[in-house]
């Protein structure tokens, strides 16, 4: 961690109540220095300030800094990009941690972040190919055939024929990795798109709607367990809404948005608050808080000032962001 990062952290922890004049001041005085200072020598970021570099926090940091206002050194981006390219596995995927030899859901994040870099076309293309080759095992034709004879509907009530993406290869479809894969495919240049991408996108969108909790909102992907409705969660709902942002209106999308809007005032953690704010603003929904409320939440969870949460905050507080900019229209 560099001196500027240490300084930013110390400054925040010394203040009982951080009340910047504006979102921009908080971004420039705390969030950006924190992220810049948290970059490791290898170009990546860890979840914690001194943690080992991982693909996920690296992706969120690069996305946040790329969208941040003013003067982040180009070296920061270049070394971050190099870290990601070096971390890519031979099969095109990215692993969640350094020693792992199998790809995971973070492949979607890496593809999203590298999609804007011209020199990364081959890496993104390989990553998307890997994503589209990975089919969850729970919805394989064999499993569906077997389930016709042996399964009861008492456990869950969702449509097993729909296929999204899992957290790890050859497991089950879940809401968040499906949302991240949809975002990766959304962000990719057409030259990078696998042939079957549009079919996978269509199935994944149907899966997200199928997995919505009764009454609106999403959790990890269990809308009903043994006849009991699942409780929606803020982060899952926010990612699902962002992934569905560019798709046609749907009553379930509206229900999810309504749930998030109603839940927003009760959100007590900065990570969830930041991502929910991005999602609501992307749909043109008014969000009545500013840097003060987000910084106060960050203050309260000093120990949880993890890199990805600061990156999400950085994005949420920047009205000029290019990544899911606030929409002026009504939700």
């Amino acid at each position, binding site marked *: 961690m560099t001196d500027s990062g240490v300084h930013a952290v110390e400054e925040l922890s010394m203040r009982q109540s951080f009340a910047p004049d504006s979102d921009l001041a908080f971004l420039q005085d705390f969030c950006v220095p924190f992220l810049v200072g948290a970059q490791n020598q290898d170009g990546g970021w860890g979840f914690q300030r001194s943690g080992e570099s991982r693909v996920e926090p690296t992706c969120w940091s690069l996305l946040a800094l790329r969208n941040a206002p003013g003067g982040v050194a180009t070296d920061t981006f270049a070394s971050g990009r190099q870290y990601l390219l070096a971390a890519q596995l031979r099969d095109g995927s990215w692993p969640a941690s350094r020693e792992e030899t199998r790809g995971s859901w973070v492949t979607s994040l890496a593809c999203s972040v590298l999609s804007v870099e011209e020199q990364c076309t081959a890496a993104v293309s390989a990553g998307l190919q890997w994503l589209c080759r990975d089919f969850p095992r729970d919805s394989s034709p064999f499993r569906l055939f077997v389930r016709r004879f042996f399964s009861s509907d008492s456990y869950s009530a969702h449509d097993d024929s729909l296929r999204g993406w899992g*957290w790890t290869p050859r497991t*089950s479809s879940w809401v*968040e990795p499906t949302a991240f894969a949809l975002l990766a495919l959304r962000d990719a240049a057409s030259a990078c798109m696998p042939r079957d991408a549009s079919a996978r996108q269509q199935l994944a969108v149907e899966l997200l709607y199928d997995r919505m909790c009764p009454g609106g909102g999403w959790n990890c992907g269990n809308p009903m367990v*043994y006849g009991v409705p699942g409780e929606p*969660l803020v982060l899952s709902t926010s990612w699902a809404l962002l992934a569905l942002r560019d798709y046609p209106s749907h009553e379930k999308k509206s229900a999810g948005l309504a749930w998030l809007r109603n839940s927003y005032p009760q959100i*007590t953690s900065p990570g969830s608050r930041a991502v929910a704010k991005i999602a609501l603003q992307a749909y043109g929904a008014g969000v009545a808080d500013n840097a003060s409320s987000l910084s106060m939440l960050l203050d309260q969870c*000093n120990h949880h000032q993890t890199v990805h949460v600061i990156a999400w905050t950085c994005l949420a507080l920047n009205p000029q962001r290019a990544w899911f900019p606030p929409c002026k229209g009504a939700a």
Partner: protein
Amino acid sequence: MNYRNQQLIPCFQRPPSRVVIRRASTYRQDLTALILESLRVYQLPVLGKSVLLKANLVGLDPLGVMNTHPAVIAATREAFLRLGASAVFVGDGPAMDRDTFAILESVKLKDFTGPVGGFFRDLNLDDVNRVPLPTRASRLKELYLPRTVLGVDFLVSVAKLKTHHWAGVTLSLKNMFGIVPGACYGWPKNVLHWAGIDNSILDINAAARPDFAIIDGIVGMEGNGPIQGWPKPAGVLILGDDPVAVDATACRVMGLRPEAVRYLAKAGTLLGNLQAARIEQVGEKIESVHTQFSVLEEFRHLAT
């Protein structure tokens, strides 16, 4: 890296275990004194050592029925500090919701412990090391586990007394699912389900066997646990240095047969004592605190 208790001992070579059962009717009583008194039964080697309390924090829980109650976590932490531990961390890697801070806020842990910044570890986001699995009961050959778990001197599973809709019961051994990091395996840690829950529990506990187990049964959960069940006051704390014996005793308190819980039956071959004859009860007798827990139809066979 500190690989504690890696050796697996066949049940016929394992010495008998002692399990302490304490009555505790409310979270408002002096739990620190109760837990401290129980820990002293074991003369634990924690003086000057680092301790990790692996709590069970599964989700947003404003009513305090699905997670290890913060009063138990705080009292356990205080008790280990009074025993001379150099540092007592609390950690978990919640399985369904990656916003661990939101869960901590919902359970109000800081109201019981003070600011949690210095000692709480989000195991989902910890740096990891590759750990080969000594038992290979599941198809997994290795897991990436948090360095905090691997590095502490003394690991304590601080679980909740609950039924579980897939495993039958979730106690101190099943609680160890939470050390598997979500940042590697997702929310939920679905790869463990595909590898087989029962065998995964065995593999995880063989790789990082708790040195001590404490089960919060003051208010447990019955029915469709571990999240959607109903509160079940049982008024007990169950503690011991053999997590299998502690879980077996907890099952008996719940009116369930530990031998019929598949993962416990397997754990009883290598990880600890399952048979009642091999477990010395200290404190309350099982019969005096027995509280019948209801289970889903699929687990009716567990009931005694």
